[in-house]
Each structure stands twice: as structure tokens, then as C-alpha cells.
């Protein structure tokens, strides 16, 4: 039988095994495509690239302010597509010392005649500073419901880290406010709350 020159003789592997391995890689790579979603978030969170500021900051120890440095923090507020709200920072910029907790407010008003829900998404520039910008309280941690014609001031409490690289003297925090409608509001709640 072994002398017979059939192709079976040279089979180092069976077809079933090769197919099995290939299909396993296909399934694995398909899963990897989806795994890139959380991996991307984690990667951005660790490295601070992409201007994605992290979620609620729990300070472990009370730090004192570094009075020798002054950082200018600027605020931008803009609406996402088709968002009719009036949205602006109460103060366009503040001068802060690294280590001190600062509270600022953003003004939002729903000028329409329907009840709406908004969600603010932050982005920090330069992205190098993202790791050193801590928010202890932010309206962007939650969705903002506003009744028709209602207005509100939304608080943000932040600390600029004392370890902020010395060549950074200015940080710009930008918020984009998105219309979440009414029906979507409940479904997206869990996903957006930890988005910070």
C-alpha cells in the first residue's frame, strides 16, 4: 500500500486538520476585529492619545497646589449635528495652578418646544496633556435631560496634575454636545456613563 503512488502517502496533515486550523483562525480574527473596539479604548486611555480624557478621577491623597506654575485652561463648547441647544462655557478660560481643584460651569439651554436629552463628549488638546487632566466631577459623566425651554448650568470640577510636563502651559478642553433624542436615551445610558 505504501508503495502505491497515491497522494495520500505524502499527506503530512489531513485536510480536516488544516480546515480546522484555518476556520479557527478565521473565527479568531473575526473576534479580534471586535476586540479592537475595547482594546482601542484601553490603549487610548493608557496612553492618553486621541484626546480622550478618562472617567471620574478619585484622588488618593490631598495634593497641594504648585503655586510656581500657572496653566491656562481654555474651554470650547460646540453642538453636534442637528443639535439645537444653546451650549457655551460660562468662562472661556481660567488660569489654574497644578494640583488645585477648580470648578467651572457650562451653560446649556433647550430652546425647542420638546423635551430633549443631550450628551457631551470631551476632547483635550494637546493630547499629550490628557493623562494629566483629571475630572472629579463632570456633566459629561451623565446624560443631560432638559425640558422644553429649560436652561441649566452644568458643573465641571477638575485638577491639573502636578506632573504635567513643563513645556505645556495651555490646555484646551472641548465639548461636543450630541442630541440623544428620547428613545435612544435609555439604551445608551450604560455605554456613555463611563465615557467621561
Amino acid at each position: 500500500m505504501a508503495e502505491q503512488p497515491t497522494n495520500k502517502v505524502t499527506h503530512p496533515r489531513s485536510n480536516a486538520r488544516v480546515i480546522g486550523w484555518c476556520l479557527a483562525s478565521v473565527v479568531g480574527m473575526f473576534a479580534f476585529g471586535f476586540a479592537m473596539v475595547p482594546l482601542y479604548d484601553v490603549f487610548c486611555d493608557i496612553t492618553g492619545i486621541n484626546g480622550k480624557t478618562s472617567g471620574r478621577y478619585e484622588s488618593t491623597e490631598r495634593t497641594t497646589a504648585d503655586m510656581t506654575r500657572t496653566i491656562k485652561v481654555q474651554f470650547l463648547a460646540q453642538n453636534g449635528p442637528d443639535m439645537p441647544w444653546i451650549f457655551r462655557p460660562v468662562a472661556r478660560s481660567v488660569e489654574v495652578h497644578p494640583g488645585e481643584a477648580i470648578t467651572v460651569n457650562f451653560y446649556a439651554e433647550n430652546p425647542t418646544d420638546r423635551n430633549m436629552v443631550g450628551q457631551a463628549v470631551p476632547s483635550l488638546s494637546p493630547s499629550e496633556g490628557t493623562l494629566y487632566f483629571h475630572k472629579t466631577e463632570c456633566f459629561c459623566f451623565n446624560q443631560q435631560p432638559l425640558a422644553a425651554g429649560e436652561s441649566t448650568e452644568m458643573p465641571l470640577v477638575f485638577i491639573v496634575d502636578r506632573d504635567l510636563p513643563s513645556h505645556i502651559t495651555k490646555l484646551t478642553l472641548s465639548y461636543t454636545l450630541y442630541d440623544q433624542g428620547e428613545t435612544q436615551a435609555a439604551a445608551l445610558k450604560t455605554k456613555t456613563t463611563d465615557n467621561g
Partner: protein
Amino acid sequence: MSAVADTHAQDHHHGPASGISRWLLTTNHKDIGTMYLIFSFTMFLLGGTMAMVIRAELFQPGLQIVQPEFFNQMTTMHGLIMVFGAVMPAFVGLANWMIPLMIGAPDMALPRMNNWSFWLLPCAFLILVSTLFMEGGAPNFGWTFYAPLSTTYGPPSTTFFIFAIHIMGVSSIMGAINVIATVLNMRAPGMTLMKMPMFVWTWLITAFLLIAVMPVLAGVVTMMLMDINFGTSFFNAAGGGDPVLFQHVFWFFGHPEVYIMILPAFGAISHIIPAFSRKQLFGYASMVYAVGAIALLSFLVWAHHMFTVGVPVAGQLFFMYATLLIAVPTGVKVFNWVATMFRGSLTFETPMLFAVAFVILFTIGGFSGLMLAIAPADFQYHDTYFVVAHFHYVLVPGAIFGIFASAYFWLPKWTGRMYDETLAKTHFWLSFIGMNLAFFPMHFLGLAGMPRRIPDYALQFADFNMVSSVGAFMFGSTQLLFLLIVVKCVKSGEKAPAKAWEGAEGLEWTIPSPAPYHTFSTPPEIK
């Protein structure tokens, strides 16, 4: 059906079934290869027609022929059809025909799956092309379908586009599994991995690339599907997603994809140049390792497509250097092809003409790729016609010329007849001139700042665009000549001997021309 089988059963030699069922039900690698090649050429003409619409509109500044919405559908469909409908199926067709012949196998390892993977393709493209007639039109967001352009702002037909991509992805994956199983399990006794013909090597590596990245493409379109229809927010910033994530996932597929479209051509060229140089391929082992290196590096360079989205400097540097590194193995390959020709006794039949043009023009495309890879310069070139010039220089004289070279090289083996050399040389020279006329001016247009994917442009770009359009019409109409040449070859070509080219080496030239319906039922012995 059974009557046919009975008459042939006596000599144990089953010929093809008759009529349409031969093609619908065939599990023969030669039949399936032929169908792949015919399908690919059909799609090439369809995608080419769309390119003609694009070039006709760009012949002069202003809007003359089509509206911007339709123009965008044309650029999108042209790209999708050429990539997934013309180039990839052509290489799968060549693989089906040639891999079993080259490794001395009687057929592909999984013949029934082979049939299925082919017949999925016409279904996928029927769905894709039908979107042109749907309300809201065909996809209009470019072949790269960036979110949120394709999700939030895409036409209603986007869902059909997604299903079409899913189906062609399944087809490619099955084709790739088949190639891997065939190459690993069905080689003739004595054919070790390092004795495999280069085309088999390049296809084996291509198949691994396909297995690795087609599922990622399927994943990214699935995410789009969910964003569009099920209210998820993978790419929607309002819901906590990120549009830049789309580009990362897409290009993780997209960059290996460009090597999927060129590596099999590298393999074919590595047979054609030695055959017409009457020398062995220079540096076989280094060719194999170079292809492997290119394939591995292709997974580490995806972000060079997206330098301008705000990649941090460290990332830009990494992706820039990794990309530049690919020039090394590619340079090894070009060097080896030139060294093969060096002091060979060269003749320039049509396959060799296409092969030499491949080496020269693909290298030009490679050099413009190096320019684009330099991150600070890329900010200037990004999304201009320079990019269009670059990738058409690697895909037209790279992939397409590689396919034409292979087709002319192996036509005598497939049909048993020689093609008309004069007509074929005319086809080559008109293609060569037309292609350069069409794409070379695009370099200048891009450097001067003309953006890609626009139906109208500023007046100062008018002359180069007119030249480019004339070249495109020339290149496009010339391809009909290829159809004529093949038909003439099949009908009335001179009979070809088993070894159609005196310098050609390999198992495929040891069997008669045309290749019998069943070959290597008894495996040959490789020394």
C-alpha cells in the same frame, strides 16, 4: 447525466458533463479556474466602464456628463468592483488553474467548496451592482467606506453593500482555505516547501493573509451594519464611539489587502522572467523570504493611511519607519528579477513585455509609495491625485499587468493554442502607453493640490486632466482587444506544444496542451 458518465466509465476517464450543469455543478479545478477568470474579466470591463464615466466627466472642468452624486457612486463602485471583482478573482482563477498543475496534484483539496466559493461571487456582485438601481443610489462614500460617511450619511442601499461584502468575504476565505489545504497536503512526492514554484509560494502566503484579514473586514462591516440598523455606536461619537476606530479596523484589513492583490503577481512574474531570460530565477530562497517578510510587515503599517487623523508623533514615526522598511524586501525582489534578466538570452514575447513593464512601472509605484510613507510629506499628498497616481501605478501595471502576463503565458496551456502575437503586442503597447498617459499626469495634479474624488476642479488642472482622460480612454478601449485575442486564440490559434515556451520550466509544461480535463491522477516524482 448518467448516460454521459456511463459512456466514459469504461476507460475510467470522466470528461466534463454537458450543458449548463457542467458549469453549475463542476468540481474540476480547471473549469472553476476558467469561470473565475471569465467572471474577473467581466467585472474588469464593468469597473472599467465606470472609470470611463469618471474620466469623461473629468475631461474638462465643470459638470458636463454626470451629477456629483452619481460621480461619487462611480468612484466607489469602480474601486469596489476592481478590487473585489476583478483583481482578487483573477488571482483565485490563476491559483485554481495553476497550483494543482504546478505541484502535481489531481485537483484542489476541497473541490466542492471550490465550486461554492466561486458561485458565491456572482451573487455578491449581483447584490452590489443592483444597488445602482435602488432608491438613493449605490454606495457613494468611496471604496474605503469611512464611517460616519457610510453609516450616518450613507444611502439606504448601504445595507445591501454590507451583505455583498460579507458574501465576497466568505468566498475569499473559502478560496484561501482551499489553497492552503491544497499546497500543504497535495504536493507531489519529493516536492519540499523550498522546491515549490514561486507562484505557489506567493499564493500560500497570500492565502494566509486572506485568512487573517478578510474576517476583520467582515467584522468592520458587521459593526457598520449594527450602527446603521441596531442603534449601536461603534463609530458614532454621540453614543461614545469613535469614527477614527473605523479607520484603524478598516486599514488593519486594508493594508494586507493591497499585498493580497500584488503577491500572486510577484509569483507569476517570477516564472515569466526566467522563462524568457532562459535562466533560472536568481535568488529563489531570498524571493521566498522576501515575500514572507512583506506579508509580516503588512500587519504593522496600517496607520500610514491615516497620518492626518491625529496620530501622535511617536505613532507616526513608528508607522513611517515600518512602512519604509517594506522597501527592503521589495527591493530584494526587484533586484532578483533584474539579476535574472542580466546576461540572459532575452526574447520579448508578450508575457515578457508585460513582465518587464511590471518590474519598471511597479517600481515607480513603489517609489511614490515611499514618498507617501514619509509622514510629514504625507500631510501635503493626503487625499490628492498623487495618491490616486500611486495606487493606480501599483495596481494597474502591478496587479493587472501581472494578470495579463500570466494569461498570455499560460493561455497555450489552457487552450492548447497560441494567441496572435501581433495582436497581443498591439494590446501590450496600447495598454502601456495608455496607462502611462492616464496615470502619470495624476502625479503632477496631486502635487499641485488637486483633491481626489471630485467631479469638478479648478481651471489650472484642465490640461493634465484632458491628457489623463485621453490615456484612460485609450487604455480602456484597448482591453476589448484582449477579449478578441482570447476568442481568436480559442477558435483558430495555432496548435501549441506541451512546452509552449522553450525556456519555461515546471510541471505544468510536462502535460499536453491543452491540459487534459484530469491531470496528475498519478503524482509525478520530483527529484
